[in-house]
């Protein structure tokens, strides 16, 4: 008897819900998919620069009520996979996300190689991708309409460095670079810029990835006494070169190491030794109130600082996505067109793309000063004046 009553009530309740539900109906969540390196060699970079931003962004947007899709707010649901720093896994994961799961939007993986692999898929399935950790002419030469590179391209960053050298009257430079597409392209950009500014390259040497000792090379360069020493290096080499230069007392007027200097761990490891070292950066909390807010939120959420180069680009890319979806909704073709043809407000300033390249953010030179990676050139973007010549190793 009681059961029948219960059943009847349940049926009535279900019917009521079914009838009334449409009135309270919410569109489902916006599914945003990505594969990123959580394990393997790419993970060190991916877990500093990219994934923490992806997660924090979706949390912040959801806290504000959801992603604005042409006026209607919908919650974000992240569909995230570990790509294990393996190309085949990257390709397969995105085939799943775009082809089978048919997520609404995608976010790119980490690194130039993985982005290369995803680009054709993004074009085939029609998903725009805004990449904060892919750089190189070769990528842009693919002329993929769905690919947008957020980072400043090598020629831009290297020209800024060359301009700084000219402004300070440096005459000679010694360059080492890593045997990778990144190193080669940066070097090509640097060589062109320095030749144009009549700064002489008195030594240029390349080295393989994973090198364990560069002291002999550094000794040779020290003897030649260049005004500037520029290492177009990856994080492990950057750390190595810093330590070994200090060991042999090699202290040129300008000491520049490309990638890795922007990571907080560089300052954590080297402490006062980092003083005066320059490298690839773009921002720091002093750049503006928006960057300060971003910095504080990141530290509060992750108990660790974002890096001073591409982390901001990652965040900017997410901001652009947000603004684009607000205007164009989830029609991905319209979204792509919006991204390609509009100017956006981001924490690192206005950003606009031309043929997939971010042509707004200028190339800059950054330098560690008293525990912060200050932007020291060009003057209009600087957060501090540069130390030149570099103070002696502490």
């Amino acid at each position: 008897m009681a059961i029948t009553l219960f059943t009847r009530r349940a049926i009535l309740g279900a019917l009521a819900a079914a009838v009334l539900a449409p009135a309270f109906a919410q569109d489902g969540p916006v599914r945003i998919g990505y594969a990123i390196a959580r394990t393997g060699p790419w993970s060190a970079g991916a877990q500093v620069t990219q994934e923490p931003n992806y997660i924090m962004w979706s949390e912040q947007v959801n806290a504000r009520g959801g992603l604005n899709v042409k006026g209607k707010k919908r919650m974000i649901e992240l569909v995230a996979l570990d790509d294990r720093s393996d190309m085949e896994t990257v390709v397969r994961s995105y085939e799943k996300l775009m082809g089978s799961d048919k997520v609404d939007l995608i976010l790119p993986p980490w690194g130039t190689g993985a982005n290369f692999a995803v680009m054709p898929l993004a074009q085939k399935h029609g998903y725009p991708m805004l990449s904060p950790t892919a750089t190189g002419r070769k990528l842009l030469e693919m002329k993929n309409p769905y690919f947008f590179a957020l980072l400043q391209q090598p020629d831009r960053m290297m020209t800024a460095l060359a301009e700084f050298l000219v402004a300070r009257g440096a005459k000679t430079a010694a360059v080492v670079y890593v045997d990778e597409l990144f190193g080669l392209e940066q070097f090509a950009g640097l060589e062109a810029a320095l030749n144009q500014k009549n700064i002489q390259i008195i030594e240029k040497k390349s080295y393989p990835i994973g090198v364990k000792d560069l002291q002999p090379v550094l000794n040779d360069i020290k003897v030649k006494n260049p005004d500037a020493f520029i290492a177009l290096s990856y994080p492990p080499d950057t750390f190595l070169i810093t330590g070994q230069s200090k060991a042999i007392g090699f202290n040129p007027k300008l000491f520049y190491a490309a990638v890795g200097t922007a990571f907080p761990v560089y300052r954590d490891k080297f402490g006062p030794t980092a003083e005066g070292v320059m490298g690839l950066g773009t921002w720091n909390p002093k750049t503006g109130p928006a960057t300060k807010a971003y910095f504080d939120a990141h530290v509060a959420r992750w108990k660790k600082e974002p890096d001073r180069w591409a982390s901001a680009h990652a965040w900017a890319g997410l901001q652009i996505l947000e603004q684009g979806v607000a205007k164009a909704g989830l029609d991905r073709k319209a979204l792509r067109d919006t991204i390609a043809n509009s100017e956006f407000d981001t924490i690192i300033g206005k950003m606009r793309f031309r043929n997939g390249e971010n042509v707004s953010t200028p190339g800059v030179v950054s330098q560690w000063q008293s525990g912060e990676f200050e932007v020291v050139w060009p003057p209009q973007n600087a957060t501090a004046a540069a130390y030149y010549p570099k103070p002696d190793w502490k």
Partner: protein
Amino acid sequence: MAFWFELVATGLITGGIYALVALGLNLQYGLMRIMNISHGEFLMLGAYLTWLGHTVLGVNPLAFLPAVALALFVLGVAVYWLCFRRIVRTAPAVEVIEARSLLVGFGLLFLVQNAAYLMWGADLRGYSFLAEPIEIGGARLMANRLVIFAFAVGASLLLLALLRWTLIGKAVRAMMQSPVGAQLVGIDTRVLHPLVFGLGLAMAGVAGALLSMVYEISPGMGEPYTVTALIVIVLGGLGSALGSLLGGFLLGLVEAFGMHFTSLSLKMLLSYAVLIGVLLARPKGLFAR
């Protein structure tokens, strides 16, 4: 003159680390034919423990070494008990032990590395210790690298001395020469196997602790060292502890000189060419019996 000294010193310092890691692996392989491909992961654990000790507890990394060695020794005994003992006991032939322990080693590699990623994240970590240059004979070397060298060589020599002059050491060498013969003369392999395995892992942990003073650490840092250790063992001769020590130095020197005389990019080519050359001339390694 100072330049050559620096070059040799660099080669020996790198070689010292190689030797230390290789010795640990050699103990396990030479004695029990256990191909522990996860050896480097325990090196990584030693590095992380030291980093934690230094940054969280403020302990001097050198003073922390015995703690790291002990912790990894205990872990090693546990790992042997859980994972390898069954294989050594039930396998019908030596090649089978090699094959199965290789597979188990892979399993351990995944397990330990993933645990590290979960616990500490993928970010690079590092600290500076004794990062001051020292001048010796006109050459400038970092103090921490010299310290690493001293400890690596010290630990290796200590092990060699143990093997040669203590009773346990003799028992271990006997087992390495002939497992059956050793058992016949009453050596208790049930006790010695886990001990030696633990000792091998302890040495890996100490190597990791020393490395953390100079290089950055990350969960994936162990694999290249496992590979290098295998090369050194093969170069020096399986089962020969002295061979591992000298093989490590040789590899370090080849790398240092190779880098200087040829292009940097050819360094690895040279190392492997040397390895292949040695094995062609002496198929069992330089010092094998």
